[in-house]
């Protein structure tokens, strides 16, 4: 005996098995990201007055990335609709665009990460803080570019306090503490990296499945088109969820 409702929906529930499965899985994902968003809220409310940093991220880049993901959301639907209309080549094209968007998103995100990891806060022995991007580093000195210089405790990188310099050389002996803007730097960056990295893993995982179904997996179109179309629908549902998470992430982390 075979397992029923693998392809055809069960009449009283109107769902085939995998479709119910993905909805259940997404429910658990909502709880996962929900917990992280709640943590964000709690940490932010609990932060000491003025301690929560603003403006650390580049809004135009974030906006572009948002548009990239929205585009992919549209093409993923078009791809599925093409299969429903029996147009396999159009499916290939649309899903190809989805994959390109996914890759673009990951590249842009990596660039943003790189930007944060080369962004340093250097506290000097005279109580001044130099905040900028690392150009070079040697045993004797470091060089930063686009530097803001201000007194310790007088503002943070994002709020454009203090004096600005295009480039600045600091001798090793002058440095008291030097730390880049990684997740260890403050709680905001901690939640930023955790949320976006987890989201990026979802993007990569989803894209891997979509790529498989676009490439070798698409042979099923010849043998079992209905089941193949279902698979595209399922991967599409997951993809929409991943996009939706970003739609929440973007304002929360970049704008607010």
């Amino acid at each position: 005996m075979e397992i029923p409702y693998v392809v055809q929906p069960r009449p009283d529930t109107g769902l085939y098995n995998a479709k119910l499965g993905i909805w259940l899985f997404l429910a658990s994902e909502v709880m996962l990201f929900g917990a992280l968003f709640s943590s964000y809220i709690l940490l932010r409310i609990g932060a000491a007055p003025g301690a929560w940093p603003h403006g650390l991220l580049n809004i135009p880049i974030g906006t572009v990335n948002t548009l990239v993901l929205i585009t992919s959301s549209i093409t993923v639907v078009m791809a599925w609709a093409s299969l429903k209309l029996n147009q396999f080549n159009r499916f290939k094209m649309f899903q190809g665009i989805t994959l390109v968007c996914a890759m673009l998103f990951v590249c842009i995100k990596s660039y943003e990460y790189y930007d944060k990891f080369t962004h340093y806060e250097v506290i000097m022995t005279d109580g001044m803080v130099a905040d900028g991007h690392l150009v070079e580093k040697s045993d004797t000195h470091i060089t930063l570019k686009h530097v803001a210089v201000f007194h310790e405790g007088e503002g943070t990188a994002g709020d454009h306090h203090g004096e600005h310099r295009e480039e600045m050389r600091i001798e090793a002996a002058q440095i008291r503490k030097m730390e880049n803007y990684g997740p260890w730097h403050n709680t905001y960056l901690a939640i930023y990296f955790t949320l976006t990295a987890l989201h990026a893993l979802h993007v990569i995982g989803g894209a891997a499945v979509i790529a498989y179904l676009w490439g070798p997996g698409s042979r099923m179109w010849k043998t079992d088109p209905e089941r193949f179309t279902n698979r595209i629908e399922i991967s599409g549902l997951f993809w929409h969820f991943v996009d939706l998470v970003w739609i929440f992430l973007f304002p929360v982390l970049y704008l607010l």
Partner: protein
Amino acid sequence: MQSTTSQTGHTEAHDAHHEEPGFWRAYVFSTDHKVIGIQYGVTSLIFLLFGFFLMMMMRWQIAYPGHPIPVMGPILEKVLGDVASGGVMSSDLYNSFGAMHGTIMVFLAVVPLAFAAFGNYVVPLQIGAVDMAFPRINMVSYQCFVVGGVVMMVSFFIPGGAAQAGWTSYSPLATSIPTDGQTFWILGMVFLITSSLLGAVNFIATIIQLRAPGMTWMRLPFFVWAQFVTAFLLLLAFPPLEAAAVMQLMDKVAHTSFFLPTGLAIGGNLANVSGGGSPLLWQHLFWFLGHPEVYVLILPALGIVAEVVANNTRKPLWGYKSLVYASLAIGFLSFIVWAHHMYLTGMGTAISTFFQTTTMIISIPSVVILTCLLISLWGGSIRINTPMLFALGFLPMFGIGGLTGLPLGLNYSDIHLHDTYYVIAHFHYVVAPGTIFGLMAGIYYWYPKATGRFMSEFWGKVHFWTSLVFMNLIFQPMFAQGMAGMLRRMVDGGVNYSLAKVGNDAIGGLSDTMIGMNVGISHAAWLLGVSQIPFIINFFWSITHGKKVTSDNPWDATTLEWQTPTPPPHGNFATAMKVYHGPYEYSAPGQSKDFAPQNEPMR
């Protein structure tokens, strides 16, 4: 009828070109729900024994603090090194064993046994399905479970040993203990959570989609309902813990400060962290899982007990619908009671009152379930066999566990009882003589279906009566100790109280009687260990030597799992099932026999 014949014809055609799977496909990488159920069952029973072994070691240290452990002490020293030097359990080792006892018992023993093992084996059979909805995901779920278990086990042997911060892993303690044990714990948990999530999706999809024709919601055996609600709890409560685990992992390896507050001092020095985190955040996320988890521990056992009770009283369950609605109510409510574990964190009276109220409300459906099961016994011609004994033992034990929970749910009394042995006694009554008795009932009950042979009744009864006595001798005195103020998680079993004593009746003092009870409790615990020997031998011996069943339905039961060949083959049923009536038609008037299987129309 038309569909039945065509289905059967299909099976034959299928079997004709069906080749026998090899050993690896059939037993190790099987996708058959019954094999996976048994894999889960055997693995989790081993973990159950291991978790109990840890506690038997700890009980020596509690009873005789600082004395070398006989027999096992030198072995522990050989295997684990300095933490057991001279065969004495150091405080580090005590903390590791305590944390791992809790973790193993909950996540590697009871949940996998109650939910995954019984659920996998029984649920598809009871709803008349050929397998789970996603057999391959089912296999992956078991594999994730094994990987999680291995990671946890390996952590005992790394430098510094396994996690030491309790099964609750509160930060900052968990983050600041200088061992990688906690990192292993988190990674292990991530695998276990993944395993549970895959299982939960599979169970829900199976129950919704694969019910046989005629198996309407109100004809589901109560066990299926219990598993259904349990699956939802796992599905929705575990992800927040996963989120918390990810954040704690970040705190451990990326030196973030999610749970580390500003100004945190470790060992008297200011910790080198950015600060700004919230220790309470961990507690909220943990207990958001933690409370639903206790219903995950108990609901499947309630389901099993309901099946066994109906079968052995030979009459329908009293209040089937109440049982169903009560479980659903528990499912919803269990998500809004979690902070009753946090009364002492200073949440403020308004929030305390809210959680105290919801906690009192959730006790209502729990009482409804217990009452239904008790009333079900009324007027039945009760058949006493080993499964029924365990089910009957379960009822009062679960009752004690549940009722002693009420003072913990009221914040006024909890302030005194929090973190004492009273809490240990309370929840062990629920999970040890409670859940474990329910699970034992299930093992003795379904064993004949899985193997074709009964387990020995005599040794089963020995197992039951000795376990019942020793369980109570272990946990009953702990109520007294806890009310007298003895704290849990103490490596010296409370000796520090004797040293600091200002007189027996002084507040905070603990009398010699109270501390002396430790010795009796520990002996009872070791004897409980001895009582499990008949079970273990019985379990393996009966596979080949037990009394053979003479029919596919040896207990004269009504539910569908008994309508299969014994043991059920791949694909389960000889013919496709069709269901005609509810699950507990025992002693229905006007029938030829005292039970009416669900797949046979009633007159």
